[in-house]
């Protein structure tokens, strides 16, 4: 499982999990599950186009995921956000269908594009993947605070000069960037599971944002490694394992939250103690 061509898969899988888990923290924070689903699926058309013209798949993925991000960003400016996401997504998928109908190699190609392929990573894909991942993580680190503040208190952030539309567009492009490099192993259809399952689980176990990101990355790593190993053993698609195990991690998180809320005694109500009236405080 760890020999020769599988090494590439493990390396890329690790990168995928780290980037997915990190970005996923913000995806869940911003409630952007649909966007995380739409942008990778939109990039599918790009991969189809790239194989049609005969260029590197990553270029196609990149162009179309950015196009999807921009499409969603622009359409949602004055329309409903969920409608903009849905229509951008299906249009991109429709283009994908068109490109596929042009190409001769049909089913095996789309199958691995959509659902992932353990063996498909060539060594010359490693360098660009690592570079893009480093870029992505650097961008996240740089934008961490404004992104966090704008996601939680958009009005206050705006008053400090962080415009919500700019943040939204930047975030969409960041998801597009993350998508571009993470799709190859897991597949376009299910990469989003890595961006929502692990962070949703992580937030149940900690109250601090930095810990939540670290935990999200850790859970994503476990899921991805398990998916690779299982896929290698059973030949079943990686995407299947990612989707299902991510769902299980989410369920674990929710169960923990539920159990903890019902186990601990409710703390005494902290609203205004009547004795405060008339007492001056010393700071």
């Amino acid at each position, binding site marked *: 499982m760890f020999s020769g061509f599988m090494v590439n898969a493990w390396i890329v899988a690790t990168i995928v999990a780290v980037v997915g888990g990190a970005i996923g923290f913000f995806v869940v*924070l911003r*409630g952007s599950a649909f966007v995380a689903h739409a942008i990778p699926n939109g990039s599918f058309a790009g991969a189809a186009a790239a194989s049609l013209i005969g260029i590197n798949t990553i270029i196609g993925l990149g162009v179309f995921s950015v196009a999807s991000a921009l499409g969603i960003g622009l359409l949602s400016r004055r329309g409903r956000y969920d409608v903009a996401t849905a229509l951008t997504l299906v249009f991109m998928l429709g283009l994908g269908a068109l490109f596929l109908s042009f190409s001769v190699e049909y089913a095996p190609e789309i199958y691995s594009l959509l659902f992932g392929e353990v063996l498909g990573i060539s060594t010359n894909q490693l360098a660009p993947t690592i570079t893009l991942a480093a870029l992505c993580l650097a961008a996240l*680190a*740089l*934008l*961490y*605070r*404004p992104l*966090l*503040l704008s996601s*939680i*208190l958009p*009005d*206050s*952030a*705006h*008053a*400090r*000069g*962080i415009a919500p539309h700019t943040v939204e567009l930047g975030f969409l492009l960041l998801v597009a960037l993350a998508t571009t490099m993470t799709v190859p192993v897991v597949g376009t259809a299910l990469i989003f599971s890595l961006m929502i399952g692990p962070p949703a689980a*992580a*937030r*149940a176990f*900690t*109250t*601090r*944002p930095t*810990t*939540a990101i670290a935990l999200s990355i850790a859970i994503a790593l476990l899921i991805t490694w398990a998916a690779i190993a299982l896929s290698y053993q059973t030949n079943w698609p990686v995407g299947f394992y990612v989707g299902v195990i991510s769902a299980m991690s989410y369920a674990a998180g929710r169960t923990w*939250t539920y159990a903890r809320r019902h186990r601990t005694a409710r703390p005494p109500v*902290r*609203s*205004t103690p*009547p004795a*405060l*009236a*008339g007492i*001056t*405080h010393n*700071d």
Partner: protein
Amino acid sequence: MSTEAPAAAETRETLAVEGVTVRLGGRTVLDDVSFSIRAGEFTGLIGSNGAGKTTLFRVILGLQTPLSGSVRVGGGRRSRGDLGYVPQKFLLDPDMPLRGRDLIALGLDGERLGIPLRSRERRARVQGMIDAVDAKAFADERVGRLSGGEQQRILIAHALISRPQLLLLDEPLANLDLRSAQEVVRLLSRIASDQRVAVLISAHEMNPLLPVMDRIVYLAAGRAASGTAEEVVRSEVLSDLYGHHVDVLRVHGRVLVVAGAGHDEHAEVEHADIQSAPVEIV
């Protein structure tokens, strides 16, 4: 903080709004509004819903460009840290992994790029702020799980920690019960005097603020009158603002503004919270 040297000395204006007019959707929301606030003053921006309070805040915050007029903060050009803002509406996800403490820390440098470095000084400032707003008991809980009043205190700390000259609060009393409202008002008044921050708080009900307000800006039909409560909350002044006759009644130390006879469709009635026992105000 402030840049240019102002002409006056200690009593320089923290906020000067001059001739601000805003038209939105064909309606004149603000009509030649002018007033000023000095350091450490507690000012109430009073007006009913739709009177233009939020719009005025947005102009002050730089989120809305007025048709005419100007806003000056600190006697010169605005810099980032000069304004603290507590919005009216905020929705904090109960599952969000963020403590009150973390949210307050974001008030220090939330707009700066890069990852915050842990430092003793940073932690001390955050703790100081937590103490100042009496949030010690819940500062380490998930901020989304706190009650509305508790969240509000966290947000006040978040706005204050960057040591602004002016603190704006958009309808902070709107959903609070009387007791909590008085608590918040006392807290803000204390902050205004202790930390020399000018506080501008908008409300549609002026009575909880009467004990602590240094000045009032009364907004009606897009026009404003400013001054002390004694100067502004008078029948002649308000009637002039509204454009029709209103009476000002004082009941048990409460103020009641009532539309005059025959002009009921624009009745400005502020319900006095008349209680059987007079509430103690410190």
